[in-house]
């Protein structure tokens, strides 16, 4: 873990008025940035139009923009998005395991593709590859330290 903050002075945008919606698109709200008390939406790391839902193919693509180009938190943010999406989908898709922290695609029939917005990260290809390697994601989420970090980021989004 880095001792200093990667981005000590992020630009903070105004939070959008929340409407009553359901579906994968409203999962970006209130996910806390790993370094700051602001949500990813407030930091414009992720916006509503960066979420593409292909209903026919049951495919969701989420594109996020880290605040700085060399953000080493990119993979953590990507993981948070993955986990949040899985937990937020309609209840009939929820895992019946007691350990909900695991990214469990087992009971879900939606494919999720998470990537960094083009041109926004120095090693974007490397980050995207890791985030979309299901085996690496599964192994990462078996790491308790990483899971704690993800849970902390997602806690305000359940309020």
């Amino acid at each position, binding site marked *: 873990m880095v001792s200093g903050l990667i981005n000590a002075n992020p630009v903070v945008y105004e939070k959008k008025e929340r409407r009553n919606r359901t579906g994968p698109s409203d999962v970006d709200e209130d996910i806390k940035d790993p370094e700051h008390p602001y949500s990813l939406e407030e930091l414009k790391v992720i916006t509503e139009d960066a979420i593409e839902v292909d209903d026919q193919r049951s495919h969701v693509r989420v594109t996020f923009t880290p605040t700085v180009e060399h953000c080493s938190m990119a993979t953590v943010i990507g993981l948070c998005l993955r986990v949040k999406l899985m937990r937020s989908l309609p209840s009939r898709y929820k895992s019946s395991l007691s350990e909900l922290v695991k990214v*469990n695609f087992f009971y879900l*029939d939606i494919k999720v593709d998470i990537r960094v917005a083009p041109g926004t990260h120095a090693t974007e290809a490397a980050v995207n590859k890791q985030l979309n*390697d299901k*085996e690496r994601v*599964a192994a990462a989420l078996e790491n308790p330290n990483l899971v704690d970090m993800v849970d902390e980021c997602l806690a305000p989004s359940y309020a």
Partner: protein
Amino acid sequence: MNFVDDSVELREVQKLEGHTDRVWGLAWNPATGSAGIPAVLASCSGDKTVRIWRQNPSNGPFQCTAVLEETHTRTVRSCAWSPSGKLLATASFDATTAIWEHSGGDFECVSTLEGHENEVKSVSWNASGSLLATCGRDKSVWIWEVLPGNEFECVSVLQGHTQDVKMVQWHPTVDVLFSCSYDNTVKVWAEDGDSDDWHCVQTLGESNNGHSSTVWALSFNATGDKMVTSSDDLTIKIWGADIIRMQSGGIFAPLPAIMIEQFFQSIGQVLTSKYDREGVIASGAADDAVRLFVESEESKIDGPTYKLLTRKEKAHDMDVNSVQWNSA
């Protein structure tokens, strides 16, 4: 197999339930499934267990006869039976490889192979059962010698891959080891006749018609002159190998593997592919489909071509992680 018409179909005969997390790998016990011995299948899972399934009676449904648990502390990623069918090796994210022996219906962990720095992804026995290979996220490939009394001794740690190694597979007839990786390459490892040193004799990368993304799996046909690789780049590639050159002892000559044909699949990265006894290739992908490919009757001047025989969409509700033919 003579396909008279084009209406070949895959039909599900049974769904085996029991695992409480995704099933990553499968292995048929090679000593079962013929001569009246009911087929036995091992499956390994993110639920940290391995399940043993036996067909009961010989052409009836499969039932779970054992659960190998309380040994691995993390996902069990891969399992492989020894050629004799007496031992089962299981590779886990907990950085160990366990060796199980069964007597009657009970399984006992008789050895634990340690050494990898982190997740072990694959384990493979050579044709004679004298050697075992493992690989993992620590980018290394380990070769172990099988000694009497269920003892295992590491004889080589192979460095060369620049990323996570996804799978290792021994050649079916020659003691040559193949590995495939997140670094997009397939590497071929052989023993130097004089010094018993293992080293990389060939790398199949993008520059020699290799894959452009993670290579998840590789498999050989029965005679070992063809190999199929499957990748995150959405293709499977079929390679030709020169067995004679591989076998000429003494100074090892590099194995020439030439890419013969490639296929493009729609959505999902190809996670697994396997040759059956008669040369039919099965593939499983992240688009939930299972596909069968076969060599085409119309041969080209420069070599064989392959065609899609059938595709089973939604073979599973989620990604197909592993396909295995029962060769009995």
